[in-house]
């Protein structure tokens, strides 16, 4: 193959030998280059390029791969609810996550310059980049557990909430036995109906001292009820250290504030209600003449504020994005910090000398000089976010998995996780490829610009 190319003309001029030599050496150089490239090209061709073509073809066939269905899978993709949710969530991801990471990274990189422990700070923020998304997922699933006893986030939320909102909740409270009340499916209800104008006192027991508010005061007897009213006192019928008479409001017994008391008519409708004051007194007004049962609904005795259902359908995507930001803000910070350090400090100093304030320096000098780095960070993050899989696969509990869906997870579920429709799976994979295409073009363009410079 290599022997036949030398032209007769070249042989005649006598420069043929040198020419042949240089051509041969050129050919040799190409062969050597090929040898250096061969392993990479073979692997990339067989395991990356060929699969892309295969996936393209496969996406035009049905689930079993035997029947050609044309664009059917692509149409189906937009018809399915789960796929639709996935695409919508991917849009949310692409809008929120790269911006959040880049902004945080920029803020950290700028502020980091002003502290002495910047190396330590850098390591702390950057460290999550080293661990697996699986480990990060386990961490965030634990942190955002619903029970405030187990999940640190809800523990914090409840602690803050309880500082600002003094909500009455008396979990575990019960009625003093033989006092004319019964506990019916969580509510405390009087055995007999009373006429308006009556006074009904409700003695409760079984409340732990630590669930009483700090500013608890002693219970007081309610004022006598007029017509159309029912009054009474709800109190803790218990004296610390013993003493007191059961069913009687003794002088040192605590009034229970904030308990809802309802008047229920014969038909079982709640016609009026009132809430107890600090001394435990309530007054239900505007009652028609008649007989009413007094009821304390179960809401008085539940656990009180239990925080936010973070891993529920409403917040799950937000939590997963947060875990992503925890990992990738460090990446943005490192990239931007290195961009910052490459900027000529004298420009900023000169501006400051001229009387520019820090914001103006940042806005007019630092930010424009940084913009190439920020573009790189942004493109990298967008490519990365579009393909997000592990975190979404790991963090949501079963019930909120559908709400958290993204394309990569949908592709997995459809192809391997029970769906077993590799035609549709291939179409979804191709959708992902299509979505990263603009970023690829940006990459190629940037590469060409860099080289022509």
């Amino acid at each position, binding site marked *: 193959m290599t022997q036949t190319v030398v032209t007769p003309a070249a042989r005649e001029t006598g420069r043929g030998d040198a020419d042949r030599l240089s051509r041969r050496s050129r050919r040799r150089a190409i062969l050597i280059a090929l040898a250096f490239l061969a392993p990479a090209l073979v*692997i990339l061709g067989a395991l990356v390029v060929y699969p892309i073509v295969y996936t393209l073809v496969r996406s035009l066939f049905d689930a079993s791969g035997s029947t050609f269905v044309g664009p059917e899978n692509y149409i189906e993709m937009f018809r399915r609810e789960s796929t639709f949710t996935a695409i919508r969530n991917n849009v949310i991801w692409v809008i929120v996550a790269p911006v959040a990471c880049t902004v945080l990274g920029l803020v950290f990189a700028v502020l980091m310059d002003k502290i002495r422990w910047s190396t330590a700070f850098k390591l702390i923020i950057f*460290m999550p*980049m080293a661990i697996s998304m699986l*480990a*990060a997922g386990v961490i965030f699933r634990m942190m955002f*557990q619903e029970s405030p006893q187990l999940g640190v986030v809800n523990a914090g939320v409840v602690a803050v909430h309880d500082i600002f909102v003094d909500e009455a909740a008396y979990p575990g409270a019960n009625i003093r036995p033989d006092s004319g009340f019964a506990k019916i499916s969580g509510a405390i209800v009087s055995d007999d109906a009373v006429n308006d104008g009556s006074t009904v006192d409700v003695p409760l027991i079984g409340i732990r001292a630590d669930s009483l508010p700090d500013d608890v005061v002693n219970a007081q007897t309610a004022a006598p009820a007029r017509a159309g009213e029912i009054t009474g006192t709800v109190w803790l019928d218990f004296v610390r250290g013993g003493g007191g008479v059961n069913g009687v409001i003794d002088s040192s017994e605590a009034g229970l504030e904030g308990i809802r008391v309802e008047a229920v008519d014969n038909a079982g409708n709640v016609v009026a209600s009132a809430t107890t004051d600090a001394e435990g007194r309530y007054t239900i007004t505007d009652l028609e003449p008649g007989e009413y049962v007094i009821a304390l609904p179960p809401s008085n005795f539940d656990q009180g504020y239990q925080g936010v259902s973070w891993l529920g359908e409403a917040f799950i995507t937000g939590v997963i994005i947060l875990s992503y930001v925890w990992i990738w803000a460090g990446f943005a910070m490192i990239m931007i910090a290195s961009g910052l350090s490459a900027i000529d400090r004298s420009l900023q100093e000169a501006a400051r000398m001229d009387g520019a304030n820090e914001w103006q320096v940042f806005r007019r000098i630092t930010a424009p000089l940084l913009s190439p780095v920020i573009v790189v960070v942004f493109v990298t993050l967008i490519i990365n976010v579009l393909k997000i899989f592990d975190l979404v*696969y790991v963090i949501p509990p079963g019930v909120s998995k559908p709400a958290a869906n993204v394309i990569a997870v949908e592709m997995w579920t459809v192809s391997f996780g029970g769906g077993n429709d590799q035609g549709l799976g291939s179409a979804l994979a191709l959708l992902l490829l299509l979505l990263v295409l603009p970023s690829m073009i940006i990459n190629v363009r940037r590469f060409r610009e860099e080289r022509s410079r």
Partner: protein
Amino acid sequence: MSADLSIVRGKQTLGQRILGFFSRSVVNIILIVVAIFWLIPSVGLFLSSLRTVGDSSSSGWWTIFLEPTRITLENYANLLSNPTITGSFWNTIVIAVPTTILVVLIGSLAGYAFAWMEFPGRDWLLIAVIVLLAVPIQVALIPLAQMFGAIGIFGSVLGVILFHIAFGLPFAIFLMRNFFMQIPSELLEAARLDGASDLRIFFTVVLPLGLPAVASLAIFQFLWTWNDMLVALLFSNSQSQPLTVAIQSQLRQFGANIDVLSTGAFISMIIPLIVFFAFQRYFVQALLAGSQR
């Protein structure tokens, strides 16, 4: 630099100095709060791994400070004597180490060719490599599952390794080419004049000079492979699964097995954290040199 600063400071009025001190303390406080928030997740995981399963299902890890005597290494003892965990730990090494070596070797060979050799279509091939940088691995899952099934390596460590090499190569080639371009051409010319072959030049001149780049790529690829879950989820089986997959399979019983999950997750983090803290300079370099995966 420090001399410059002192001159500038000397010109400041007392008011400016107070303002400067104030804004510096505000920045310090903000960043301390940020740092604490960033540490809480990992610290929480670590502390959870030091508590018994009973403690973990009745109270949060932060109560460990109230009862420090309840700290225990029991979970680690249990997991390290669990053959599934130790086996998958070993699998992770068996997958990550050969992948890293082969990606570095094959990627450097190609990177050298792209940086210093003339051949037709070089620019187009390089652009193809840059395009492949961003290809989502999802497009290869279905075809390679079939291909590996056909040649009998589906479910084996080999399949996982091959997949990782394929998708690690574009970045490796790009990175190594960029680093090798910076080698002064005189060094290569000198070696050529001495009659050294390209292979010899590659191993005796280029690789030693590019050692920082090799380290960067190796650390990046190692962490990438060690931390992967998606590829191994499909291409490994219960015998060849790495740690991430083994731990992931525990997630279904989340809540009852916090001990296994937190301890397993922390064990899976130990090697990456050691590598990270020991070589973070190289890791950062790999990121800076162009990471568009």
